[in-house]
């Protein structure tokens, strides 16, 4: 199979950004596939940039949305992808492509947030999506249709209230599913730091959710009293 044929197959499989990659591939196959895609982007193969974008778009967008805030997500994601594409020629493969992309996205989001801190004030006014709904209704009044959206909103709201360092680690580990070794590579910190930050972050989030009236039953989807 020629390189080009290989590229075409890969681009089709890459679209959709579901998880780490196509589930039928082994980890080694995924690594080889991503390396081929990076090589294609470097060579300027038609469609390769877009293929790489589609592979990572949701991961990058979700990550920057949660770190920098939903209202800033588009601008930050754009900045992150521009850094990614401009940096690819200098990418030496010392880490996995995904780890390197996460690093650039996290850096873009954190530096954006430091330049433009989120507005202060009542959290209901500064968060988006289901957050306002979640805070407006007591848990006891949730209807079945509200429950998931409300919980997601309250969870997102709790995450948004965490300090940046805690939030970044809990997003990378508990939402994005990275291992501590990968998080350490993304954040350029020790594995032990990643672990301790994660546990502190979870504890802080637990306290925030408890203060917001969220119980284990709510989180399990059973609702109050179940």
């Amino acid at each position, binding site marked *: 199979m020629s390189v080009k044929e290989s590229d075409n197959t890969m681009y089709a499989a890459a679209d959709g950004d579901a998880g780490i990659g196509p589930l039928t591939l082994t980890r080694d196959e995924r690594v080889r596939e991503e390396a081929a895609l990076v090589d294609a982007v470097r060579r300027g193969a038609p469609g390769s940039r877009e293929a790489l974008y589609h592979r990572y778009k*949701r991961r990058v*967008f979700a990550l920057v949305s949660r770190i920098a805030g939903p209202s800033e997500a*588009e601008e930050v994601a*754009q900045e992150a992808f*521009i850094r990614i594409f401009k940096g690819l020629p200098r990418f030496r493969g010392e880490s996995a492509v995904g780890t390197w992309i996460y690093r650039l996205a996290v850096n873009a989001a954190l530096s954006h947030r430091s330049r433009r801190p989120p507005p202060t004030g009542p959290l209901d006014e500064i968060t988006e999506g289901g957050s306002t709904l979640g805070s407006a209704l007591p848990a006891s009044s949730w209807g079945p249709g509200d429950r998931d959206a409300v919980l*997601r909103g309250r969870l997102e709201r709790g995450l948004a209230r965490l300090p940046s360092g805690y939030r970044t680690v809990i997003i990378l580990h508990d939402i994005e*599913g990275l291992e501590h070794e990968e998080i350490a590579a993304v954040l350029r910190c020790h594995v032990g730091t990643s672990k301790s930050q994660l546990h502190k972050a979870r504890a802080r989030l*637990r306290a925030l959710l408890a203060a917001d009236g969220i119980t284990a039953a709510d*989180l399990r989807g059973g609702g109050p009293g179940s």
Partner: protein
Amino acid sequence: VTLHVEAERLSAWISGELPERDVVVVRMHVESCAACAKAEVELRAQILATRGLDRPEPPPTLWPAIEGALDNAERLPWSWPSSLAGALAGAAIVVAVVWGIARGGHPTENVPAQAQVPQAQARPLTEDPLLLEAESELQRAAESYEQAVNRLRRILEREQTHWDPETRARVGDRLARLDEAVVHSRAVARRDPSDSSGADMLFSAYRRQIDFLAEAVHRGSPALGEGLR
């Protein structure tokens, strides 16, 4: 006094990251302490719920914006921040089209603006669909320019943190004068929308603003300081 297990240790225990000797202690305590057992259940539920959060889909405009910015950055001989280049290119295209519409011809036709005035005045603006369309396009073009200006200002604000106060002050004064020119020409353009010279003046003011901001962002403090002396 009952010492409960802290949430951090519970989290480490749940994740299997506690040293072996601590695992036994924590497990025994949780089995015998209702409060810690409840905390463990809540923490496990929280971790599961967090894992279940979705990844939002990025807007469909994101890739075209990235692609446009990359293309523009590669075309420019020197490197503006890429996201800005897309905005500027967009504004320039819109303005070129708008000028063509407002002057009743193609943008490349060199028709004197004065020749258009009697025609525009002869037909009230509100009854002329072409002029209404032109006015709407002009509005959009102005918005594109303003977005570009705002982006440049934000970049400049970041850059300026490394500048000396004197240069910052000079740049601030110059920007204030350029802002005044925009405000003035916007007022002129609004006074008589059928006269394209007002729009010309406004876009010229925007371009001066953008040129200055881009120069400031691109060349930085020392070169700019000399240029302003």
